Structure formats: C-alpha cells, structure tokens
C-alpha cells in the first residue's frame, strides 16, 4: 500500500519568479500555447522529461522521470520527447541550455533529482518554459522506501497543474473487479491499483460475484457488494487494514453502494419493500431512510456534488433513463431524453457533465451530457462499454469494455479525444472505480 508520509511542496525559489511565471503562463496562453484540455491529441504539447539524477549508488527500482513521462502522455495532452533524442541530461537549472531544447521543438522541460531521505526518498523537480527560458514551477516530495512511483505521480500532478491549471489526478487509484475468463469454475477478485494500473493489490477474493466498488471520500475505504453467502450483501472494507464490516442486509437486492460527499452516508439499493428502491443509510446512526418510491426499477444512485440530490436510473417511464431526486423535497426530475437506454449516471467534480452508459443502435457506449447545454455526445464507439467512473479532476473517464472478446479497462477524456487502455495480465477486468484524491 502506497502512502505518502510527508509531502512538502516547496515554494518556487523566489516569489518574484512565481509571479512572473504566472503572468508569463497567462500571456503564453493568450498566444495559443497554453494547454487547453479540449485541444487534446490533435496538437499535444511537446514536453521533455529528463532522467532524474539519483545520488545513491544502488540502482533505483523505479525510473521516476519515466513515470512522469508516461503519466503526461497518458493524459493525451502532452507528447514526451524520446530520451534517445535528448542532447543533454541536465538535472539542475544551471545545466539547462534552452537552445538545445528549443532546437528539439520542446516547449516545456522537466528536470529533477532523487535522493535518499531518512525513511525513503526525496524527489525534487523543476519545470521550465523553453520558449520563455524561465522556471515556472518546482517542488519537493518526500516518501517512504516503497513510494517512488507515488512520488513520480506527485511530480506529474504538479507539472500537469502548473501547465493546465487543472489539478492532476495521476496519484490516485482505481478499484476494479477481476474474474476468470471461464464461466465455471470461476473466481472473483476485488483489486486496487494505481491509476496507471501498477501495483495491483488484492482486496478480496471469492468464488461468488463481487460488484459495485465505491470509494469513501477519504479514499481509505471501499464499499462493495459480495455474494459470498450466496446472497448479496454490502460490505465496507478498510483497504489498508483489510478490516471490514457487513452492512445489515435485507431479503432481496442489497446493492449499488455510493458514498455521500460528506462521507457520513451511503446511498444504496434495497428491494425489501417489493422492488429496487434507493435508500440512504446514515453510517453513524445506522438509520435507514427510503428515498424513492415507485413500482419501476430505481437503482444506481450517485450523489450530487453538494449532497442535496441523488441521481439514479429508473425505468419508471418504460425504459431506463436517468433521474434526479432532491432529498429535501422528494422532487424527481428526469435528466436524459435522448435514446431508449441511459443508465448509471455520474457527475464530474464540477457538476457540469453527466457521464453515463447509453445505448444507440443496440450498442452500449459511454456518453456525456452537458447539463448546462443539454447536449449528449458519445465518448466511445466500441460496444458493451459500461461502468464509467470519472477521475476526481473530471478530465478522464475510466470504464470497462470488450477487447478481443474479453473485458478490459479503458479510459477516455471527457472530450472524447484521448483514450487509453488498461489491460489485465489474465482473465477479465471490469467495474473500475476511480478513487478520490489521496491525501
């Protein structure tokens, strides 16, 4: 389990530099060079991440610069310069020759060092604007002996934020379900990996289905559904200690757990009163409140950012569509109208985009609906795409899809322009749940 013991973002060396770089960044943006997420892969920004200098004697287990390189490329907004093309390998500002990097058509340059610290490692980095020939960001991160990858992701987050203005989501995790490819006998596993797919750790293994992992707001616990007793029950498990608690279960469905933004409540689906309905469980008082009341299916709750509404899927209109209920008043409003199958809605962190599964011509795609404009657009063209989960910064959506007849994880940017796959070594993987920011 990766845990940052201590993170120190150093202030840029001189306050004046900071102000200057901020101004420069803005002016550069006005000139067409500022990175806009929407420009995506059509015109990725060239960046060079020079191998970080390591002051120790034994080779490091991880290549930190390579991690940063891969993170930035995976965002689809950057094109990293190959090392073989680099003319020099500076790791401090004094050794940076801007002309070299300019010659290589690099717009931004990242250099850094890794050094041993008391309990692990210290990573220092600096980000330079090649055209302006200035350092625009820099910092230091500390971590334990097993935290090199996390330290790399922290550098990526910082660089990404400095260049896009959007908080990076590289140092996050993804929970997902893996299963044997065979139907029977089969196994089901709940795993947690870094958002780039590395360091997968098994949380639970069962010979009965596991589904619907959902992160607590502090990214320390997972709620999920397990059929290990031959009946569905919701469990909450601390992913560090492994300690888990079974929520009181009822006859019928016990499913679709979703943590409230304040972390104190869990929305869930029970059919104890006849058919699938949304309930809210107060995790402190254990009080259970029924939210929906309809003979149609009501499922897949997702909390609004302010915690005052719950989005859900319902076929009360005949076909599954996404609705929103206001918890105070019970007022229900339908949100989707395009197409005859829209389900599993979730929102970006700013509440502007509704991400969902939408069927078109009999095929299931990930779609996004702009709640301000009301327009829906498809993010994927593959089939059987499901379980979309939005990164905490709203930049990417991870989902599961079919690839060569098996389930894999994939991600697409919220604008549909950037896509990447997260293949599994064996078996099938599905139901990705992107974690909140790790603190």
């Amino acid at each position: 389990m990766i845990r940052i013991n201590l993170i120190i973002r150093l202030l840029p060396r001189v306050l004046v530099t900071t102000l200057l770089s901020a101004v420069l960044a803005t002016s550069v943006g006005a000139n067409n060079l500022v990175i806009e997420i929407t420009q995506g892969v059509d015109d990725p920004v060239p960046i060079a991440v020079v191998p970080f200098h390591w002051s120790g004697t034994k080779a490091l287990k991880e290549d930190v610069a390579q991690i940063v390189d891969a993170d930035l490329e995976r965002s689809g907004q950057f094109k990293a310069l190959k090392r073989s093309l680099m003319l020099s390998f500076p790791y401090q500002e004094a050794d940076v020759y801007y002309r070299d990097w300019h010659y290589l058509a690099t717009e931004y340059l990242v250099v850094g060092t890794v050094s041993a610290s008391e309990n692990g490692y210290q990573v220092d980095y600096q980000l330079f604007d090649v055209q302006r020939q200035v350092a625009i960001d820099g910092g230091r991160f500390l971590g334990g002996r097993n935290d090199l990858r996390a330290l790399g992701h922290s550098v990526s987050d910082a660089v990404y934020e400095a260049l896009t203005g959007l908080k990076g989501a590289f140092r996050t995790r993804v929970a997902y379900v893996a299963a044997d490819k065979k139907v029977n006998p089969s196994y089901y596993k709940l795993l947690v990996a870094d958002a780039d797919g590395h360091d997968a750790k098994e949380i639970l293994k069962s010979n009965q289905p596991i589904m619907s992992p959902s992160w607590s707001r502090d990214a320390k616990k997972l709620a999920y559904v397990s059929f290990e007793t031959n009946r569905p029950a919701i469990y909450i498990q601390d992913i560090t200690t492994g300690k888990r608690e079974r929520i009181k279960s009822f006859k019928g469905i016990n499913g679709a757990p979703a943590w409230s933004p304040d972390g104190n409540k869990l929305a869930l689906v029970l059919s104890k009163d006849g058919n699938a309905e949304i309930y809210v469980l107060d995790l402190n008082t254990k009080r259970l409140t029924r939210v929906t009341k309809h003979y149609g299916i009501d499922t897949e709750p997702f909390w609004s950012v302010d915690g005052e509404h719950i989005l859900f899927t319902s076929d009360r209109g005949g076909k599954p569509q996404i609705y929103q209920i206001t918890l105070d008043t019970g007022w229900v409003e339908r949100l989707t109208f395009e197409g005859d199958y829209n389900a599993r809605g979730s929102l970006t962190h700013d509440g502007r985009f509704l991400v969902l599964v939408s069927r078109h011509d009999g095929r299931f795609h990930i779609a996004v609906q702009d709640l301000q404009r009301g327009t829906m657009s498809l993010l994927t063209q593959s089939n059987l795409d499901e379980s979309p989960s939005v990164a905490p910064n709203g930049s990417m959506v991870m989902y599961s899809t079919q690839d060569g007849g098996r389930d894999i994880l994939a991600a697409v940017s919220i604008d549909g322009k950037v896509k990447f796959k997260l293949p599994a070594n064996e078996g099938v993987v599905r139901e990705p749940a992107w974690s909140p920011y790790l603190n």
Partner: protein
Amino acid sequence: MPVGNLSKVIASSVLVVFLAACSSTGETTDATSSTQAAQAAQAAQAAQAAADAAALAESQALEEVQAEAAAQAAAEATEQAAQEAAQQAADEAAAVAQELAQQQQQAQDAAQALAHVIYFDFDQSTIKAEFRTALNGHAAYLSQNPTAKIVLEGHADERGTREYNIALGERRGNAVSRYLVVQGVSVDAIEVVSFGEERPVNAGHDSASWAENRRVEIRYINY
C-alpha cells in the same frame, strides 16, 4: 418339573408307612395275633388310603402340570399369533410407507425432471407460454409438499449496466414467483435472489449466448 418330584416324594412316603405297618405286625405276632392282625389291617388300610391320596394328588398334580403346559402353549400360541399379526401389520404399514415414499420419490423425480431454467426475452420478465407446463409442475409439487423450498435465481445477459441488470434479474425472479403463488404455492416456500449478469452460463458475446444467460434458475433447497 416340581409337580413330578412331589408325586415321587408322596409315593415313597406311602411305601415307608406300609413297611412300618408290616414290621410292627411281625413284632406283635408273638403277643396277641388277632389284635396284631387287626392293627396290621388298619395300618394297611391307612397305607392304602395314603397311597390313594398320593395317587390322587399325583394325578391332580399331573393335571395341573398338563393344564399349565396347555395354558402356556396356549399363551405361546397367542403370543405368536399376536406377533405374526403385528408383523403383518408392520409389513403392511411398511409397504404403504414404501409406496408413499415411492410416490414421494416419484413426485420428487417428476419435479426434478421438470425444466429448472426459465428463459426470457431481452429486457423482459414476461413468462413465455412454453415454460408454463414446467412451472405448473413445480407449483403442484410445492403446494403438495409444504416443507419444500426453492430459490429463484434471476439472471440477465451482459448488455446494459450491472446494477440495473441486478434489478432486472430480480424482476424475472419475481415474475416466476408470482406465477407459482397464483398456482397455490406459499410465498414462504420461495426466495428470489438476483445475480444480474454476474453469473453467466455462457461467456460468449453473441445473441445465442445472451439468450442462454437471460434466465431464472429454480433451485430446490429442500424437497
């Protein structure tokens, strides 16, 4: 036999009395022969009476023995008759029980022979006509066997979202449950558990595989 011993004891005591009478007769011959003869005759009479009594007693004892033996034989005969009757009754009961068990087994076999998987159309929970015969058979068995219990496991194909498919699988299980209840099955004999699309029987990604996966499985947890 104690009765036989008693008659021997009585017979030997008669002999002792007779010998004693004879010897006393011999002793008194020298004194007064007439008195002695009379005494001897009395003794002989007494001895004869004793012997008669002993013989009577013996014959009575014998009769008693015989009666007792007869009684015992009769008792034994009665007992045997009773045992035989009981055995017969038991055999008959066993036969009936066996027949019932056979009938039960046949009913159970018949229930087992019925289709245990009900298939559905996409996004539908309507029970198709072709499955009514099987369901009627299950309903008949369940209503005749109040201790029998079933779990209706609802399943969906992989299309659509997972939690929605859990609800869809339950809807299918409920449809089958309602059908059985209408046929007279107690609601307490039925539990519905939906597995959604999580436990396919066919891992394929085509129409034929999906059709196999959209189903309700009837699982008996008690016959």
